[in-house]
Structures are given as C-alpha cells and as structure tokens.
C-alpha cells in the first residue's frame, strides 16, 4: 500500500511539473491599415473606414496594431515599439492612450511624454534654447502594457500623414 501511495505522489508531481512547463505566454500581432472614405448612404454622405494599401501624399494612414495572447499564461511588461514609418508624419493625439504611451525623437533611444520631448538648439548670439519637439519630429511610438491576460486580445492605433 505504501508503495502505491509513493507512486501516486510521484505521478502527481510529474504532472504538476509538466503543467508548469506547458504554461506560457504567447503574444502575436498583426497590423491593419485603413483610410477614411466618404460614401453616400441613404442620400447622406458618411465617412467610413476602409482597408487600404495605396495612399496619396497628404492622406492619413490609420494603423491599428492587433495583439493577442494566445498562450495560457499572462504576458507581462509588453512593450509595443512602432517606429514612425519613413515618409510619414505622426498626427498629434491620434495614438490610443493604452498603458504607458510615450514617444521618441531620437530613433527610439529615449521615450517621454510629448510635453517632455525637448531638445536644445543654438541661438544667434550664443547660448542654447530649449524647444519642445513638434509631432513631425517624432521617430517612434511606444506603448508599455503591464499585463495581457492569457487568451485576451487588444489593440492600439495611431495615424500618420503621408508626406
């Protein structure tokens, strides 16, 4: 009888170890690009979002980053880093206020809130002057999300203007 109990205990332990080994966070992402399109519906002009892959200079690209934790364990400290695409300008206020949203003006080396994104320039007569970066100087967007529970999904979005 004691032999059976020992075997059963060992089996439970192996099972628990295996379960621990199988538990994992598994995040996947995909990106959606859309633009606004004015259509006539019931005699009224309405604006709707349509999927798009071609844009004219001056148009706004609506990027949506769809993420999903398909694992069976929570993902933590998720950092979504999105360089502003070359040839585009960030539309101020367009990024979703998800988690901790910050921006970079140095290619992703440092991130700050927009009001704190400053740099110094030399001025006539010597000395320097501190200036707040304009949205066209933003190089990266970053969202830091503390936790993505297992089996859940979410999205963040932002807009840029094609130069």
């Amino acid at each position, binding site marked *: 009888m004691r032999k059976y109990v020992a075997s059963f205990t060992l089996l439970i332990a192996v099972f628990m170890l295996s379960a621990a080994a199988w538990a994992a966070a598994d995040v996947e992402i995909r990106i959606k690009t859309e633009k606004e399109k004015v259509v006539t519906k019931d005699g009224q002009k309405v604006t709707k979002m349509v999927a798009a892959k071609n844009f004219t200079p001056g148009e706004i690209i609506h990027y949506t980053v769809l993420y999903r934790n398909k694992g069976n364990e929570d993902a933590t400290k998720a950092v979504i880093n999105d360089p502003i695409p070359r040839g585009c300008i960030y539309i*101020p206020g367009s990024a979703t206020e998800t988690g901790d949203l910050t921006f970079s003006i140095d290619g992703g080396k440092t991130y700050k809130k927009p009001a704190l994104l400053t740099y110094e320039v030399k001025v006539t007569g010597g000395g320097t002057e501190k200036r707040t970066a304009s949205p066209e100087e933003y190089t990266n967007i970053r969202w830091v999300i503390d936790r993505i529970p297992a089996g859940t999904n979410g999205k963040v979005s932002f807009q840029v203007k094609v130069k």
Partner: protein
Amino acid sequence: MTTSSKNKSSGLFKGVLAAMTLLWMTALPFSAQAVLQGSAGNTIVRNTITVNYSDARGTGQTPVTASVDITVNTVAATPTILSVAPSPGSTDGAGATQVYTYRIRTNSNGPGSIALGAADGSPTNITVSVTPPNVAASIYLGSTVIDPSEAKIGAAQTVANLASITFAVPNDNHAVNNTGAAGAVNDLMINGLILGDLVYIYSGAAYYGPFTVGTVTDPAAGATATAAPGSVQLINNTGASIGPFTPAYGWQIVEARDVTVTATQGVVADPTLDASWITTLTATMAGAAAANTPTVTTNAHMGRIAITKYVRNVTTPVVGGGLTSTSPLTGANVFYTTGVNGKPGEYLEYLAVLTDTGKGNATAVYATDVMPTYSTLVTFPATYGTTPGSAIPGIFALASFNATTAILRTNNTGGTNGVAHGQSTGITAGSTMTFNIGAACTNVFPGGGGTLATTQTAYVIYQVKID
C-alpha cells in the same frame, strides 16, 4: 481584456482634438505643396512593429514583429514648359515650316505619361495650314525624391562641371520601367529614370540642373525594417558648376525632355501685309487639374513679284505716255508703258522692271518674254558692250540686279551667277526669251531662278528691229 476600451474619450474631447489636429495640419508649411514635395510615387512605406514581453514570472520572451507595406500613389500634376526656341519664329512662302523646341518638365511625384497636342489658330492675313502642327503624341517622364536615408541631407553640395553626385532614392517596388511598362528588380531604372535622362533637382523653391542621369540602381525591396533604397547618379554636363544647394528629404528629382513642334504655314492672303498665326502646344498629364498650353506666334513674310514692261524708240525718240521709267542699264533714257511708236527699220528697246512688293523673299524668280510680232531680236547691239565679238551667238540683253550688270547671250553662255542669266530660242518674232534673275540665280533652265528680297528690283533690257 480589450485594451482599446480604454481609449474611449468624451465627444467633446474628440472634437477639440480633431480641431487641434486640423489646425496643426493647416499650419504645416508643406501642406500646400504636399503633392510636389515629400513621398515619391511607388514608394513603399513599411511599418515594422516589435513587441517585447515577459511571462508571468517576469522571464523575457522572444520578441514578435509584424510588418505592413503601403504604396504611395503617383499624383498627376500639370507639367512645366521650360522654354521654346526660337520665339517668335519667322518664315516665308506658303507651305514653309517652322520648328520650335520645347523643354517639358514633369511636376509629378512619380513617373507618368504626358499627352501632347498642337493646333494652329488666330490667323492674321493668312489661312490656317491644312497640315496641322506635328508633335509627338506623348512622352513618359520619370520622377522620384531624395530618400531620407541619404547621407548628404543637410550638407551643402556643389557639383563641378563634369562631376557627379549620387542620391539615395526610395525603392519603387519595380512598378514601371522608363516607358510605363512593368519594371523588374535591378533593371537599371527607378521610377521611370534611366541612364541618359535629363533631370532637375527641385527644392520646392528652386531648381538645380539640368543633370544627366548616370548609373541607376534598383534593388529588391528586401525584408528589412525599411525597403532598400535605390540610387541615382546625376552628372553635371552643363559646362558650369551647379550649387551650392543643401539637399533635404523629399526634394524631387524630376525628368525633363525636349520635344519639337513643326508648324506649317498656310497661304498669305496679301503678301504686301504682315501675316501671322499662333500655334498652341498642349501638354497634359492624365488626372492633372489643368494642361499647360503655351503659345508661340509665327510671323509669315511672303514675297510678291510685280513686273512692268516699258519701251522706247532708240532710233527716233518718242515721248510716250502711261508710266515712265529709267534703268541703271541705260542712263537717262526714258521708257514709257504706252504711246511709243516706230517705223519699219527703226529700233525699239524694251525694259522689264521686276520688283518684290511683298513682305518677304520672292524665290526661284525667272521671267519669260515672247518676241513681239513684226520684229527681229537684235543681237550684239553696239550699246550692250564695248567688246567686239561674233554676232552669233550674240549679246541680246542686259540685266541689272543689286547694282551689277550681267551680259546675256542667246545661247546661255553669258550671264553672272547671283545677278542674271538668259537665253533665247531664236531671234524672230514669236521666239521665247527666258531670264533667271536675282540672288543665287544660276544658268540652269528651268530651275535656276534667283531671289529678290522685299523692295529689291531687277532690270532687263533688249532691243528689236521693226520689220
């Protein structure tokens, strides 16, 4: 959890945000020039996103990435006509042609076809030619921009004569070659630009060039965070240095090409008056708001020969009537258009005066005259030359043009190039005399006629004996 739910804002906040965004976009200095400055057509805008994360125990996991490409559209723009030379043109004679050379430069952000057409109109004292102006149906011009990866951005550049400068340009995804057909990886063409093309760099405020395109690279876009740029070498063949200029991202590199328009003259209604018509070239890029329609005026100057024939009695001078004339060939002797008579055996001297009364050159000028009845052409009259010689073939006429006298013999052995040549089929009544007269005339009959410029006059005299 759906984190996007956290983004829900009040309607008021969204309204304010939208208004601020609109204000910001309106204030951008480049917004009005967005079509011209910025992204090139066919550019791949690649967005690569990375997610770093940890598991529940804080252990870092393998980052995940995703990319999406969008393509920038080519925006049609009204092309620029740089020059037309010569302007205004001038021609003479119905059916004459005038060739104008136009340099057409694209203003689009990408490659595209520019349709061409030309038409004549606004005629003054002239009919519009039945032959319409001739111009190529279309030209295909390339265009790209300086890529943001270009290292020379922000640094002043001067390109010496025969030197070159190379710029990184966006990958065109091999959308087109230099004629609008599909391109291919490494086809040495990028956004319609190819070796030998004429291009300008456009800053948005000034043009630099022209340059001649040298080496072009057109790599595959690849799978890196940004699509691999191509490059365009620009060679300065202008004979002078170009610059300095400080390149920036988005400066355009636009192609220009010379095209010729050949206009054909209609028929001048009154050669004694000025004539002109206007040729309009139309250059259109499909989809552009407007066409460029430069015009050029062609002034037409056509010659017109007026001829008056006079006579005098050499043997017994008679005062005639009508018009009178003297000639450089016969000093003070007066000729008349009417009222001159004579008796058998007397000598009459005829004078033909040819004048260009038109506004332009009269070319291929020749005159014919049939011997009057009851008369015989006089050869070697004593007054037509001091050099004795055989009467056959004899000197039968003198001509004067441009203050030079030519002595004409019946067998076409006399005459002077550029003044006059003459011959006669005989000396009896009904014989035909022919004269080539004017600048550049020769002794070729037919076909050797000369040129009289406007207001120029030529004279021919010959004598007959009344039978």
